[in-house]
């Protein structure tokens, strides 16, 4: 069944888009002709990103922990964008590699 709208939660404000992507690091072996003969995945990275129309939320900075989708991950990048023809928007990218223990940066004082 098709899914309409942004159904995931996470990030800030009135979500306009949300995405989850995963990538893997893969080692490979090649023969004398340069053709790959073996591939071995050894690490996986899950990354979430969202963009929302700012609605007054307190926006954390990069390095803080945030819940995106169904898991708590570290913010890799957050940007607040204002324009003279529209609403302020907040974009955030966060993720986790493998099953790494995540330790957030302390908030700036």
């Amino acid at each position, binding site marked *: 069944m098709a899914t309409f709208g942004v159904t995931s939660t996470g990030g800030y404000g*009135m979500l306009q888009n949300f995405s989850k992507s995963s990538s893997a690091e893969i080692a490979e072996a090649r023969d004398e002709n340069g053709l790959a003969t073996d591939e071995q995945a050894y690490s996986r990275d899950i990354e979430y990103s969202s963009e929302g129309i700012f609605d007054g939320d307190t926006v954390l900075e990069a390095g803080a922990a945030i819940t995106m989708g169904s898991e708590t991950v570290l913010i890799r990048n957050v940007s607040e964008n204002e324009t003279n023809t529209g609403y302020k928007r907040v974009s955030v990218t966060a993720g986790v590699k493998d099953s790494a223990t995540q330790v957030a940066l302390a908030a700036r004082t």
Partner: protein
Amino acid sequence: MINTVKSAIKTSLQSAVSGKQVLLSHDGTWDGGKEQIAIEATTETFARDQTGKPFAFQVNAVITSATYLDDDENGSLLTALHSAVFNWVMSLSSLTITGYTFESVTEISETEVEILAEKLKAMSVNFSFIITKN
């Protein structure tokens, strides 16, 4: 909602052109002989919430000023009327629209003098503004 918006425009504009007749459309009373002003407006979605439902709209308004050709041969009446409307748009920073918040005027343009119905001369100010649902 569009009728509420047009009424808000009329109320605000009327105070800037006191003594002139401001109409909500080119209805049967539109004849230009009394230095009339007509308001037309359409709306379109400007922003949506998480579910895709619109919560902000762009209002595209056209305010046409008209005078009767025989009464305004040199166009001075039309020029004055149009200028008053343009200046009102330029200074527009709030409108009272029930259920919505006026954000800002985002576009303004004007038209040249045109002849309507062979007896009127008219000029228009086209402008757009954003409103957000409360």
